[in-house]
């Protein structure tokens, strides 16, 4: 076991454990708090994969944007913070069957896939490659992304405006 393995399992444990706590926490703000660590752990895993840009974007967008939005949403509905969420166990049998099928599928895929045995060389940084690809091959996608975000912006703003009235 090398030091990379140890760090990998550390981040994996953080991710899985905090994700578990997100689901089981009784207080919804506690859930949001644990979600912070889930996102953080995933960012760590991205770094280990050599995807430095994605890792930081994960923190900037998910932690810096989406989770804040989530928290604001939770805090705006003022009743919800004092209410304990019901997180009991229902429909055990269908859940077990569904989970079992899914696990079997994942396991069989894992068994049958031919995994690359020698890891590829880690690039110095992935940002430049991303930039070249975005400007050359996927320039249309790049501009379309701009339009997609524009639509999202207009949609979000109009929904918020309707709520206000």
């Amino acid at each position, binding site marked *: 076991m090398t030091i990379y393995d140890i760090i990998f399992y550390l981040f994996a444990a953080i991710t899985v454990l905090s994700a578990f706590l997100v689901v089981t926490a009784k207080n919804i703000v506690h859930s949001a708090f644990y979600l912070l660590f889930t996102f953080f752990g995933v960012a760590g895993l991205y770094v280990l994969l050599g995807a*430095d840009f994605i890792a*930081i974007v994960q*923190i900037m967008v998910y*932690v*810096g944007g989406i*989770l804040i939005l989530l*928290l*604001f949403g939770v*805090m705006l509905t003022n009743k919800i913070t004092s209410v304990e969420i019901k997180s009991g166990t229902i429909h055990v049998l269908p859940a077990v069957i569904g989970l079992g099928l899914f696990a079997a599928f994942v396991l069989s895929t894992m068994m049958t896939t031919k995994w690359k045995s020698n890891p590829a060389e880690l690039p110095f940084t992935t*940002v430049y490659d991303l930039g070249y690809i975005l400007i050359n091959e996927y320039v249309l996608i790049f501009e379309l992304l701009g339009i997609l975000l524009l639509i999202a912006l207009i949609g979000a703003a109009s929904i918020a405006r309707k709520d206000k009235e």
Partner: protein
Amino acid sequence: MNIWEIIIITVIKIGAILTIMLLTVSYLVYFERRISAWIQSRLGPNRVGWEGILQPFADVFKLLLKEDISPVAANKFIHGLAPFIAVFVAFSTYAVIPIGPDVTIFGYSIQLVVADVNIGVLYVLALTSLGVYGLTFAGWSSGSKYSLLGGIRSSAQMISYEVSMGFSVGGVLLMAGSLSPIAIVEAQYGWMWNAIVQPIGFITFTVAAFAETNRLPFDLPEAEPELVGGYHTEYSSMKFAGFFLAEYANMIIAAGMIVTLYLGGWQVPYIDKLGLGEIVTALMQVGSFFVKMGAILFFFIWVRWSIPRFRYDQLMNLGWKVMFPLSLINIVWVAALIMIFNL
């Protein structure tokens, strides 16, 4: 270098950075009090030690010996963790700010930065967005109306100014073509400081830095006349000290980032033409970094005692309607400059 040498050097560097940081934070508080006293024709702290020079230590011991109280209505778990998040985020940012060029000590070539991460600038931006959580959670968990309002205000304010901050940084990246702070500093050789090439970006970034650190004129999260203490109303003892420390640490980081991105970092223009020895040059460069940072910090304090606080709608208007368009114009300006002059 083998892995153990790297680890030892890193730990030494971290120790040095943490020590420098704690000392600067405590003396920043001292200087802030002295300078504010000077601006307002008062004396300021001058009893503990010569001219009050030991005042920061007295303050720390006072806070250490205070009773810790978390109110009944508070959410104990998050109330306890919020200052931890704030301090932790403030500290972690120091890892990527370079204070000088490479130097050779005992045969090792050492970079004067803890980690030369190739996406260092993004790392700082990401951690800045993490910093919102300390304040938001503190505000929410205290169980006080003042705290909640302060926490919400601060998070909305910080995210608003993060937009113009991000776009201003875009202009710097255009010039340097790199996300590594060291490369950005090296790209500002001579007088090619970004503050001179892109003055608009410099202004928008500096204003955003003021807003991100919750300094006056943007200190609405803790506006005393209306919100008592804002998000830290219900904090005492070391937890309060944590927020205090984080606030001043953030100020130092903001100053460090302004110097790195816009004022040429550790560079002294054309110092290599003077033909000084390597050690002297390196010392002068590290010195110049701290001098520039000190000047920015003085500016922070000066502004605090000169400009009144904004109203919240003015703050939001300034962020979205002035700083944000300006930062976009700055990007176009820099892009056009590069294209025309082939910089």
